[in-house]
């Protein structure tokens, strides 16, 4: 299938053109992505969309300088022009290299796709939206608005470089999301659910969109009775599968080798140190079948793998891309990713999660006298240099005398990454992955997954308005 994308002889000539000005590394990344989506709002299927993104990016590295050019013209002439541009861009510094004969990497498909979404008619996709809309509205008259979205994509990539790597991958993603607005005496409230996997349309044999719709509606209805969130520092219990973003923000970004290399991470120089509570083991795993961040090969042609970042609280590794690994004289970790052929690859997470502890989830709540229980987190953001991070709580409750009680209104939580890792004092045995995410870094978004068992953080600052 990769041969259809671009001829191997052409790849060889383009790589050679990239090296013409004396560079030591050149790379061709070819992408062909077809996507389809449909969205419903206000009771209507507003539109069905089809998209096609196809092009190539040429990267040339000479010394510390990377030149990059991309083109939507996949003819040999178009690719050679881009290679010349990238080579010219990198033409400062020394070096010089020859291309090693290309060796095709074995196929590595981590997710099985049973029903490719492009074999399903548009009507069936639209039908999902209509069913979800009806189920959400049936949840009660206070549900005043529903929007829902369906999306799928099939992305084929081919990566070849002057070190002889030739790899291809096919990445299928299928996504569904629903957002509900409820209205009551206290104003408007929202509920949200999303579902996304690197599988095909069989996703909807395994998951019920009506059930998702009812959950989103219930969340909005519940929040109509929400009290103002507390302010100040409190213990926080995070429900399984809803708080992986905590680790993504609190330490994941800080373990990316590009940030570490520039001294822009609070985890720089801490390899081998105890950086988290002893029960915490943190993994980044691109091979997790079906998960949103799963990839067969990364966008530099390196096979995806499972990387242990923190073992029993001790920092064991960072995440690496080609350039940073080369500088450190070690192997890449399969974390070189990019948004599209228009973007340079850099170190990115895939599926990031904390393994099970030994506590019973119910006991974790019971052990908490006064605190906050988070059933769903929204997005987050971290300053990797200081470690300070925020994330939004979109569904949360008070814990009073060891029991979950009233819902509370939305707000941000704030903490410091290294501190929070040490402040985890209870870790459940009920691991689950969370909702699909899009991770933004340096202007590029890539799909990522996260997960964790139910856990407690001794103290986090709750950004509410109540005393």
């Amino acid at each position, binding site marked *: 299938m990769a041969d259809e994308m671009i001829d191997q002889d052409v790849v060889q000539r383009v790589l050679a053109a990239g090296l013409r000005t004396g560079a030591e590394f050149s790379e061709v990344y070819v992408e062909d992505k077809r996507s389809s989506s449909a969205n419903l709002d*206000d009771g*209507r299927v*507003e539109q069905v969309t089809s998209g096609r993104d196809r092009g190539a990016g040429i990267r040339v590295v000479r010394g510390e300088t990377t030149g990059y050019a991309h083109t939507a013209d996949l003819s040999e002439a178009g690719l050679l022009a881009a290679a010349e541009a990238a080579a010219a*861009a990198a033409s400062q510094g020394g070096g010089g290299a020859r291309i090693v004969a290309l060796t095709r990497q074995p196929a590595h498909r981590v997710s099985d796709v049973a029903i490719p979404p492009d074999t399903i008619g548009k009507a069936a996709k639209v039908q999902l939206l209509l069913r979800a809309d009806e189920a959400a509205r049936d949840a009660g008259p206070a549900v005043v608005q529903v929007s829902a979205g369906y999306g799928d994509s099939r992305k084929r990539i081919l990566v070849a470089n002057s070190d002889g790597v030739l790899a291809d991958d096919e990445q299928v993603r299928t996504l569904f999301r629903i957002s509900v607005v409820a209205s009551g005496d206290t104003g408007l409230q929202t509920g949200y659910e999303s579902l996304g996997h690197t599988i095909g349309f069989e996703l909807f044999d395994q998951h019920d969109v009506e059930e998702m719709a009812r959950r989103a509606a219930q969340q909005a209805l519940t929040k109509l009775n929400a009290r103002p969130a507390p302010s100040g520092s409190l213990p926080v219990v995070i429900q399984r599968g809803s708080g992986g973003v905590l680790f993504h923000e609190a330490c994941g970004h800080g373990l990316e080798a590009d940030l570490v290399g520039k001294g822009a991470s609070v985890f720089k120089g801490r390899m081998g140190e105890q950086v988290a509570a002893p029960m915490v083991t943190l993994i980044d795993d691109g091979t997790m079948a079906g998960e949103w961040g799963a990839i067969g090969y990364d966008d530099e042609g390196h096979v995806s793998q499972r990387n242990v970042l923190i073992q029993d609280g001790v920092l064991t590794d960072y995440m690496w891309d080609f350039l940073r690994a080369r500088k450190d004289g070690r192997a890449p970790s399969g974390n070189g990713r990019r948004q599209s052929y228009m973007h340079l690859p850099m170190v990115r997470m895939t599926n990031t999660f904390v393994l099970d502890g030994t506590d019973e989830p119910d006991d974790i709540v019971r052990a908490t006298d006064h605190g906050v229980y988070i059933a769903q987190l929204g997005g987050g953001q971290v*300053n990797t240099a200081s470690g*300070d991070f925020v994330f939004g709580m979109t569904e949360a409750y008070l814990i009073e005398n060891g029991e979950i009680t009233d819902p509370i209104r939305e707000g941000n939580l704030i903490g410091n990454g290294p501190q929070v890792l040490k402040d985890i004092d209870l870790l459940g045995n009920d691991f689950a992955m969370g909702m699909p995410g899009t991770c933004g870094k340096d202007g590029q978004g890539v799909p990522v997954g996260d997960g964790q068992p139910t856990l407690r953080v001794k103290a986090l600052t709750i*950004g509410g308005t109540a005393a």
Partner: protein
Amino acid sequence: MEDLLELATGIAGQAGKGEQIEAFVARANDTAVRVYEGEVEHFTSAQSEGIGIRVVKDGRVGFAYAGTLDPAGVDEVLAEARDNVGFGTPDEWAGLAEPDGVALVEQDLWREELLSLPTADKITLAKELERLTLAADSRVRVDEADYADVRAEGAVATSTGIATAGRETGAYLSVSTLADDGDVTHTGFGFTVGRSPADFDPERAAREAAERATRLLGATKPSTGKVTVVLDPFVSAQFLGIIGSTLNGEAVLKGRSIFAGRVGEDVAATNLTLIDDPTNPLAYTASEIDGEGLATRRNVLIDGGVLQMFVESSYSARRSGAAPTGNATRGGFKTTPGCGCLALSLVPGTRSQAELVADVDEGVLVQMVQGLHSGVNPVSGDFSTGASGLMIRGGQLAEPVREFTIASTLQKMLKDVVEVGGDIEWLPMSAAGVSLVIRDVTMSGA
């Protein structure tokens, strides 16, 4: 640009009986340079182009796009968009924009000089900014200095009579800084933007980047309580962006605006007048046409605290019976138009930030916010964001503070505006900033 308009009108002209077609065509040339420790870390140069086609028939909408302008690709996009029409739900208000007789306000958005700027000069600009920043303060490290420019051309044409094209250039110079403080490292940034490098002020960018990284040295977590906040222009611009999203005619129609049904009512303090005006050449997002090809215009949204109107796309205007306001937004050729504010600003007051601070007994000057996307819900109005800045005691700036949140609701904050500063700043976002004093905000820390 003319070739893009020709392509767009050619496609729109293929509309059959009972069918409307809109073609949006874009082309851009980008350059990006990143410098680190005096060397070029990467240099990117690229041309991209693409087309998005919207088809409306029998009240149904279909859309398709592709990142190519080659004739076979374009034909496929039109065929896909037509095929997609059949799956929409009929909507009597569905349709494309129609010319409404409002004349374009011509803008000077293109700088020919950018096209001939040598690559070496672009690299030098980034290197020079890195050098200036390091020279500004010996405690500061630089983790990247970036130069970027873009020249973008676009055209939109419809079978309903719209046929407009525009082009603009932009250039950006920015630097990201670090300052070590024991175990913690603080970050800062500085930037300068313009239509071309002739508009740059690198000295200011360097100074601000050094200040932002060093002003938090020794910062602690403050205690929890109610305070008066002074929002720095960079922060208030982001706040205005969120307020703008609630004054959106489509959100009102769909029951997602806290201000639905409140035109003519007091929604803000009397000192607050909010204007959306992309015809103002000072605005970073100044433009002649909106995302559907209508002329942009000046709209007064809140006047002396009284809500005047919502901004509309052609769809929301048609459905609500309002006049079009030229506020269709467009995120490029891959999406259909939305509705939103394009260039917001508050009518500034007269006093400087220092004068505003002098009137605050107990409060905090908020210089940075973090997590607005996760902690603010424009539908419910809940507002909560991570923040850092300087305490204010007895009218004086005091110690730096970090790792706290400020929280209120959007509705309450608008009413609690004590004063609008005179220091309006046209920042590189869709709203201008100005120092803003808001009372009775919960600060949550230790």
